[in-house]
């Protein structure tokens, strides 16, 4: 299988090409821009057939155009970041409500002000209630694999929901790394053409999509989405397993576990920072710490069952959030804690707010966090529940 040294953004663009996407509607924003530039280059060089690129005038219109295209039966893609994603927010609900399997890459970037173009998960996590599935990539390979799997999962007859593949600003988007890309024929076998749930070209039995739902009916349609999200968990595992069998990289776990088998302390987090955490785990292990890492790949649907299985057997979980919900706590921490409340798995959990706006989380930082967690476990009591770890004091 051919390997290439590409940036995270180019990995996304190649996946779009290999998925035989039919419509891309997108608006430029740093650090997403090189995704759409690369796609435009594919078109300019005649490397893709039947791909319509709509250079819309805003992200809101990008998502609206994707919605129109997807409702017409096309395999549809877009990409954005931070402010752009926030502008799309209304239409994210629309895409899910109309049950359209649009795939989007969000390049995680901090929300302004102050202006920032650097990595931060608050932009995508702010969209958690829109009915989109969310996958957080650790590296460029996962960006590529994620986009390909996303189409298959989104378009699955039991799902029909949009999927957001999330990658870190610059740390992945602009970092060149080795990415293994299967041959086109292999991908075509894995990802056949889309079979839409409905299409607007049905002139024989025309219908309207999204007509006024009164209190007598709206409720049931919401339940359908909730149910599809639950179904999506099974589909994610199936597709992840199939991907592994075909291409050698298994994604059947919604939470990737790293050296957690006998771990007392587990670092839990999402996205690119988990690469550094794994590196730190190896070093800490060599120093005698019983630590492991749990990378939450899918934030929506939330892997409740897998989290419970993990939490049963560990003493402490350090949740690393590169995001924050003002007035509350880190968003992953908030959700993970909530999942465990009604279970018998109650490890000590502490929230470390790290790396907001692109500040590096280094191996030394992870080591310091391990030390802190160890003390907490020995004392059997939290020093504080939420720690702004990187704060200058």
């Amino acid at each position, binding site marked *: 299988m051919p390997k290439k*040294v590409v940036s995270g953004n180019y990995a996304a663009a190649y996946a779009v090409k290999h998925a035989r996407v039919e419509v891309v509607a997108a608006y430029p924003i740093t650090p997403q821009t090189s995704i759409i530039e690369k796609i435009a280059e594919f078109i300019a060089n005649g490397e893709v057939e039947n791909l319509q690129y709509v250079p819309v005038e805003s992200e809101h219109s990008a998502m609206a155009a994707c919605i129109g295209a997807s409702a017409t039966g096309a395999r549809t893609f877009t990409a954005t970041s931070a402010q752009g994603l926030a502008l799309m927010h209304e239409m994210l609900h629309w895409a899910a409500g109309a049950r359209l399997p649009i795939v989007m890459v969000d390049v995680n970037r901090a929300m302004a002000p102050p202006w920032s173009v650097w990595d931060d998960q608050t932009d995508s996590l702010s969209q958690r209630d829109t009915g989109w599935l969310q996958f957080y990539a650790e590296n460029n390979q996962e960006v590529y694999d994620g986009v390909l799997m996303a189409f298959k999962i989104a378009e699955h007859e039991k799902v029909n929901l949009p999927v957001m593949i999330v990658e870190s600003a*610059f740390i992945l988007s602009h970092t*060149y790394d080795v990415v293994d890309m299967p041959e086109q024929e292999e991908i075509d076998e894995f990802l056949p053409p889309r079979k839409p749930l409905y299409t607007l070209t049905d002139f024989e039995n025309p219908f309207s999509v999204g007509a006024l739902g009164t209190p007598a009916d709206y409720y049931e349609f919401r339940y359908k989405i909730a149910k599809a999200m639950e179904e999506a968990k099974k589909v994610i595992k199936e597709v992840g397993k199939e991907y592994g069998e075909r291409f050698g990289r298994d994604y059947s776990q919604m939470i990737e576990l790293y050296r957690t088998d006998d771990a007392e302390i587990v670092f839990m987090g999402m996205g690119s920072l988990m690469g550094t955490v794994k590196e730190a785990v190896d070093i800490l292990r060599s120093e005698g710490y019983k630590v492991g890492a749990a990378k939450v790949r899918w934030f929506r649907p939330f892997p409740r069952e897998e989290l419970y299985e993990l939490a049963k057997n560990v003493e402490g979980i350090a949740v690393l959030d590169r995001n924050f919900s003002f007035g509350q706590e880190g968003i992953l921490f908030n959700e993970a804690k909530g999942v465990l409340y009604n279970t018998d798995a109650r490890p000590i959990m502490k929230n470390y707010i790290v790396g907001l706006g*692109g500040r590096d989380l280094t191996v030394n930082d992870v080591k310091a966090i391990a030390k802190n967690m160890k003390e907490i476990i020995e004392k059997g009591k939290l020093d504080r529940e939420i720690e702004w770890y990187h704060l200058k004091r």
Partner: protein
Amino acid sequence: MIEIRFHGRGGQGAVTAANILAEAAFLEGKYVQAFPFFGVERRGAPVTAFTRIDEKPIRIKTQIYEPDIVVVLDPSLLDTVDVTAGLKDGGMVIINTEKSKEEVLEKLKKKPAKLALVDATTIALEILGLPITNTSILGAVAKATGIVKIESVEKAIKETFSGELGEKNAKAAREAFEKTVVYEL
């Protein structure tokens, strides 16, 4: 794992140099990572770029704070930037300069174990007609460090720039490879 930090100015191609070096190492079967300092620098401003090379997949996702090798594309940076910041003991510095070893060492805050000098600007001007030193300096990197073969550098350059441009840049790298002087300190 070998960690390399490039110092240049916006427009000189430091980021491209980091990418080409990664590509060259990749061609030799290595795992690589290349990225710019995630800033918003404009043309002319000092910029930094990084390359990591390893035998196994690279997981770490931070900037490079303690490089094994520092590569300086613009001699004027020695006056304004502490290019040896965090340089590992036993580390190496490769500089594009017309100046002598002694003059250069005077400007470095930390004495490296190895110093390589090459007048990449002159080479670039002669061969490319432009003072863009990113490809020629890679010849010096191949010579001084041995982490990649000059042939791999040439190949990676030709993959990055097509046609005549690729040929010329590869030639510049080869020329620099020949002319680089390495000092064990």
